[in-house]
């Protein structure tokens, strides 16, 4: 594909990393890794979660670490409540995945949808730690206000598999230790409470 239509001039390191710092990611190289980790987790958990997250791999772009993901087809934006209601099953599944992976900026621009499908994009600022800033969490908020935050049987099974198999071990190979620990802790808390975690509860 051709380069993005924006100028490709590089920003100063301080400017480039400032946004990552703002989200509590002091190691900006970890951002594309987290993009990939989110896909790997979704793929390992299987359907229906795996249908929401597109394939993502690491690539060196202009000698910097980056991520390359499949293009999500379908419309984008304005994933307002009425749309969430229409795609309630997908929205609930997305809320479960967000509650587990702790993205810090899940707004409508990071949700792609079509008539019968939902796609989650932008997992760079995810796998947050307790106390980290949360800018938006549309799906989780919807599930608490319009859906049912109680875990489904599949969701409980998925969390159990995550904790009892080597699934988490694979993620530990690429995630920072504290972020992998926080992921496991979220899974345990979700199982203990039998519901997803609220917005910003990492």
């Amino acid at each position: 594909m051709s380069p993005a239509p924006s100028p490709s001039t590089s920003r100063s390191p301080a400017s480039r990393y400032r946004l990552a710092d703002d989200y509590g990611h002091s190691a900006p190289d970890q951002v594309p890794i987290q993009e990939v980790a989110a896909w790997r987790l979704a793929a390992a958990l299987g359907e229906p979660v795996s249908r929401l997250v597109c394939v993502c791999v690491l690539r060196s772009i202009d000698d910097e670490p980056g991520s390359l993901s499949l293009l999500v087809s379908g419309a984008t934006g304005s994933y307002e409540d009425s749309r969430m209601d229409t795609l309630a099953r997908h929205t609930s599944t997305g809320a479960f995945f967000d509650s587990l992976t702790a993205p810090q900026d899940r707004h409508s621009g990071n949700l792609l949808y079509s008539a019968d499908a939902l796609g989650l994009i932008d997992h760079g600022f995810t796998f947050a730690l307790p106390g980290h800033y949360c800018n938006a969490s549309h799906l989780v908020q919807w599930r608490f206000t319009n859906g049912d935050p109680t875990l489904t049987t599949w969701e409980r099974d998925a969390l159990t598999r995550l904790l009892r198999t080597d699934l988490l071990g694979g993620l530990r190979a690429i995630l920072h230790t504290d972020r992998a620990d926080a992921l496991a802790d979220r899974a345990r808390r979700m199982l203990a409470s039998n519901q997803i975690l609220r917005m910003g509860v990492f």
Partner: protein
Amino acid sequence: MIAVDLRIPTDGHDYQTVASIQVQDGHAEFTGRRELFATDVAVFDEPTGTRVRYEDNPERWARNLHTAYRTGQLVPVITADTDPSPPPQRSRRPAATIPER
């Protein structure tokens, strides 16, 4: 005054403008798919290190849209900016995407 396009990849090889915002003297005008602009979401203002909401400062909010739209799936592009003191570099190369086969 600032003008920003939102562009989406058409077939994995090109980008198409699907919505635009132009802000002048605190007044915003949208064209195209207005709903693509998540005006309910705060953006990160790099020069000041603060969060900016659309209703508080639409011009600065539009100028920093790239901090909220960070993928290659929906890309904000500044097409005009008369800010006399912009930060040195605001543009960025978004994450890349490839079409599904």
